[in-house]
């Protein structure tokens, strides 16, 4: 075991922020979810007690009759902002005094850096190059992600949970964001901590071997199904095109059905996993709230959501799995492009 390698990656100055994020992201996730849980408890309580709902101030925060609903920005907000600025400045000074920004040798086009890594926040993109051709990984996927993000508020037809933390009322939307967020973080972690020279996979604790050779089978999906030149001669190329189109079509169909099913699920409790009957019950009975939310969704909203969710949120993990677990390179090979 060579933990020195891992230490070298972790302590590279440009990677220190990501180490910081390993603490910041869980902390803020916990902080947000804690407030969500408190609100959810209140919501459950008020939903069971309509009389109380009429008089309650509807927040978990303290409130007394007679308190002003609004505060003056000066000084109550301005002082918080000032304090935040002072703290951030202090952190920046300490960080900048203790850790130096990296500077390598002067740029030299004749001496390739290996591995040549982008700053950590771009490693998700760079890591995607393993799973897709550059035109998808570098151009199509990022565009889909950006447009998908912009589209989200317009396809989320749920009026609940506007301006307060809650899980209970927004399970599906949060699950979708969650998938994207976690996938993105996993890609960054792989790109930062796992990939070594030649973008080869090195487990933490393995030494980077600059001469490592990977015997990748590098097969395409049609090879697995025996649709090859050896079997079908020149016709194979057309069969491969049609086969790939069918696979992609089928993927969209199945993923769409899966999402449609998922949209109507109630909360999944851990104890369901212990009882087959309860799990089946959960999987087959639609949740009342989720069904009523789906009924509010227009056809255009529904289709737009499905398109982006399938093309990014589902396709990305599926392709990662195909590549890493089954060493499949392409599912659809044509003379013009490969997917």
């Amino acid at each position, binding site marked *: 075991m060579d933990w020195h390698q891992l230490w070298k990656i972790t302590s590279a100055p*440009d990677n220190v*922020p990501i180490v910081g994020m390993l603490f*910041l992201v869980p902390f*803020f996730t916990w*902080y947000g979810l804690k407030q969500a849980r408190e609100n959810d408890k*209140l*919501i459950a309580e*008020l*939903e069971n007690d*309509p009389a109380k709902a009429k008089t309650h101030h*509807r*927040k978990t*925060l303290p409130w007394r009759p007679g*308190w002003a*609903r*609004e*505060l*003056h*920005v*000066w*000084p*109550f907000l301005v002082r*918080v902002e000032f304090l*935040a600025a002072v703290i*951030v*400045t202090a952190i*920046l*000074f300490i960080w*900048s005094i203790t850790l130096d*920004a990296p*500077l390598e040798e*002067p740029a*030299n086009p004749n*001496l390739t*850096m290996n591995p*040549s*890594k*982008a*700053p950590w*926040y*771009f490693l998700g993109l760079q890591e995607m190059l393993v799973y897709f051709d*550059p035109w998808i990984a*570098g*151009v199509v996927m990022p565009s889909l992600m950006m447009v998908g993000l*912009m589209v989200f*508020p317009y396809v989320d037809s*749920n*009026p*609940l*949970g*506007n*301006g*307060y*933390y*809650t899980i209970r009322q927004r399970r599906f*939307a*949060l699950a979708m*964001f969650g998938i994207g967020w976690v996938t993105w973080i996993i890609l960054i972690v792989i790109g930062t901590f796992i990939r070594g020279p030649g973008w080869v996979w090195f487990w933490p604790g393995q030494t980077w071997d600059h001469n490592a050779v990977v015997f990748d089978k590098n097969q395409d999906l049609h090879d697995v199904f025996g649709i090859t030149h050896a079997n079908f001669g020149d016709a194979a190329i057309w069969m491969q095109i049609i086969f790939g189109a069918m696979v992609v079509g089928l993927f969209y169909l199945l993923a769409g059905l899966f999402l449609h099913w998922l949209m109507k699920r109630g909360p999944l409790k851990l104890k369901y996993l212990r009882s087959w009957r309860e799990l089946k019950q959960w999987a087959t009975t639609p949740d009342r709230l989720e069904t009523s939310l789906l*009924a*509010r969704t227009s056809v255009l909203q529904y289709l737009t959501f499905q398109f982006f969710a399938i093309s990014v949120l589902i396709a990305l993990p599926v392709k990662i799995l195909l590549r890493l677990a089954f060493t499949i390179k392409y599912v659809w090979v044509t003379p013009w492009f490969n997917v």
Partner: protein
Amino acid sequence: MDSERPDEKEGQPKAGNGAPQKPADPNDPEGIKSLLRAASGVPAGSRKAVPAETTAAATTEEGGRASTADFISKTRKQGLALKDRAIQEAETYKDPQQTQLWKSIFRVSHDRSDPRNRSLAILSNVFLHLHPAKINRDAVRYGFTWGMGGITFYLFIVLTFTGVLLMFYYHPTKVQAFRDILYLEHDVPFGKLLRNMHRWAAHLMVITTWLHMFRVVLTGSYKRPREFNWCVGVVLLVLTLLLSFTGYLLPDDQLGFWAVTVGTNMARATPMFGSEGPFGPQLGMTPYNDVRFGLLGGSIVDANALLRSYIWHCIGIPLVASIFMAVHFWRIRKDGGISGPAPVMLEAEMKATKK
């Protein structure tokens, strides 16, 4: 704003707490003049007569002695009176908020006791007036926004400040760029600190932008009526990442050079506009006319790429980002301020959708 100075009416009577009211305003030209007159011992309106009188008095010895004693005691008295006045006046300067200088800058007194002034403190300040005068009492809690948007904006300001200072030492040319960084690191006073701060603030800004977005998701703040502002935010996220990307090349070291080479190589594969992208070659794209060429100003990462990076990094993207931030902040106000913490809504209260 109308031309009336809102504090004048209420500010005046309060002027000089405890200090005499009369000449409290040092601005008063009449006051200054009478002050000067008192000091020179000349009654108002008799300036002409002064030399004649004194010469006449000096001709006789007696008269001269008497008038000298007279003169001394008079001057003494006036001197003491002047001293008293100066002390009284200095007394009024103890409250800087009552000085003409202060008032001319801030327009209103920040007197805590008057709620109207608290509002005016915000409304009459070009920087603070991005805020409303009052906000939801719970929105000042740290727990709701985590202050992440504000911290992101503050980091942008820090980056602008340190960035401008770095520009004083940096030439975007192949010969100079790398040496300038070495110079900054080893010779410029605090140069290393400056460079480090710019670098780490940039990393931090990426993190806080993500966390800010994460908060907006968790609180459902992108929902009606804030959908558009969410989109503005997504553009800001992209711009933040592009700022960082263009800055990475500027030290002209191996790290930046290869990162940018890898990054821009992807542009080669752009469908239709890249020389290696789907349908690119069919549309006549070559390494010498595709999007990558446009980004780099050449077919390899070289002097032109450095210059283009520099201009995008220091002028182009910050300008666009500032405009989008202005819109972002403006829209927060127009959309009714921060979305919460809002009272929770119950399922039964969902309105039926318009069909």
